[in-house]
């Protein structure tokens, strides 16, 4: 039971990161590795601020803001300095590793005895003293739902439509009299804001920051996006954000199952990578099959 709860907790925390990656990967068609740096950016910033006594909810917002800045810089490197997309993001990812160490002051910063967004005097009182088993889960679910609704709403605004348009057809955005570069930077900023916020939630759930925490974030995010859109994207009741959230939970479930079946936790990144490869190949097969079904329906 604890295992299931932990899968849902981490799956939903990572879902916020995956929603960010949906923006870069699916909407902007931008392979963004910045996330490997912006996820621990949110974690380190939150750990430091919380250890200094700041309100944990405020650290969520500040992490989002820090992610916005990181995404903006990646966007600037790509759009204004004309560096290829993946290179721009790798440069930023590498730089952020040191930035995160600077912020945290050391490679590992525990915050075991501090209040966090899940457990503080207010939430403990609401859940009736002590740490109730579902306390984290419920708080995470509320935040995920809020983020999901905000993103769904944003993508229906004029600004959100431009974001979708720039990934679809850059020429049209120019024809509309809009600087397509600015739109891309905005998209990268929002995406990394979400990723950093997810990192903040993760550090508070784990109750520490670790410098290597971000390794493999992009792979986890992409796997969640691909698994979600391939499996749930065709269900008409589910929109993209719900699909991505479910994909993230499912992916965490698969990783947990693999470890449960006898692999060691040091194998985690290997499992992450192999599972991602499997999902990638299977999703391509699914798409091919669905394409065939659609053609048959039309004929």
């Amino acid at each position: 039971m604890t295992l299931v709860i932990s899968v849902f907790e981490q799956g939903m925390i990572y879902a916020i990161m995956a929603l960010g990656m949906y923006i870069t990967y699916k909407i902007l068609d931008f392979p963004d590795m910045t996330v490997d740096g912006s996820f621990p950016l949110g974690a380190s910033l939150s750990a430091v601020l919380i250890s200094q006594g700041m309100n944990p909810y405020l650290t969520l917002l500040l992490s989002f803001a820090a992610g916005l800045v990181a995404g903006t810089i990646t966007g600037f490197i790509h759009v204004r300095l004309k560096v290829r997309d993946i290179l721009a993001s790798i440069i930023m990812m590498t730089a952020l590793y040191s930035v995160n160490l600077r912020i945290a002051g050391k490679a590992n910063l525990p915050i075991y005895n501090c209040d966090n967004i899940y457990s503080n005097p207010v939430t403990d009182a609401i859940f009736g003293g002590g740490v109730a088993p579902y306390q984290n889960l419920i708080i995470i679910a509320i935040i995920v739902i809020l983020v999901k609704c905000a993103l769904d709403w944003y993508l229906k605004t004029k600004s959100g439509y431009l974001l979708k348009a720039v990934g679809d057809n850059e020429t049209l955005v120019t024809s509309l009299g809009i600087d397509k570069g600015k739109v891309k930077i905005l998209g990268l900023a929002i995406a990394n804001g979400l990723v950093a916020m997810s990192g903040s939630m993760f550090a508070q759930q784990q109750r520490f920051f670790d410098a290597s925490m971000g390794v493999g974030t992009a792979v986890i995010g992409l796997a969640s996006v691909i698994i979600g859109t391939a499996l749930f994207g065709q269900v008409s009741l589910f929109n993209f954000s719900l699909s991505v959230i479910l994909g993230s939970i499912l992916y965490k479930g698969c990783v947990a199952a693999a470890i449960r079946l006898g692999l060691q936790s040091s194998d985690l990144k290997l499992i992450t990578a192999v599972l991602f490869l499997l999902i990638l190949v299977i999703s391509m097969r699914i798409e091919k099959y669905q394409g065939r079904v659609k053609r048959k329906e039309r004929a």
Partner: protein
Amino acid sequence: MIELKNIHKFYNAGSVNEMCLFDDFSLTIAEGEFVSIVGSNGSGKTSLLNIICGSIDVDRGQILINGEDITRKKDYLRHRNIGRVYQDPAKGTCGHMTILENMALADNKGKPYHLGRSVKKSRVEYYRELLAPLNLGLEDKMETQVGSLSGGQRQAVALLMATMTPIEMLILDEHTAALDPKTAEIIMELTDRIVRQKHLTTMMVTHNLRYAVEYGDRILMMHQGNTIMDRSGEEKRNLAVDDIMGVFNEISVECGN
């Protein structure tokens, strides 16, 4: 009014592959004029449009729109007063978005794209009225993704999107070339109607000599970066397809084809 003054444009300047596109090219197009541009491949027609829209820079010379020098103005800023339709119907629309979403996107051109809702219910009826006269049944398919429409339907939507907000100029780059003859006819008639209604200064590049003769107030023939024929008014009205074909054959012979 569009004025091009002493435009110079070289590709690969300074290298062995240096190619001169325009050498001291000048052209003036009056306010509200509908100009058709014909010419063989590589004669500089599309480059001319790209230079006006800012998609390619010039090496020397000036571009003026209504007296304002826009030579160094960024392409997206120039497009605020320009509607543009491309040969490829996919370039004027977003394939993954519905007709309604595409129209809403274009409807906001010239205004800031902020956090207001993009599709306004009050505007849907207006989009429907724009689509209905096309007789393509698109007004009942507003929720269809544009990517699943035919090329002609898609180009019709692109043309409406390019012209639905107040613009001064319309740039058409072989916009009927990828369509079947019947659809091309429909799109051409629609173009003419919109240009007349809105009094748009229009430049249309076409390989269809009949369209160049039938539509527009002026015809230009380009060859090796120069205009070798420029007829307007009475002269243009008396022009027949065979006359243009004659000039075409002459320049082809010169080139040794």
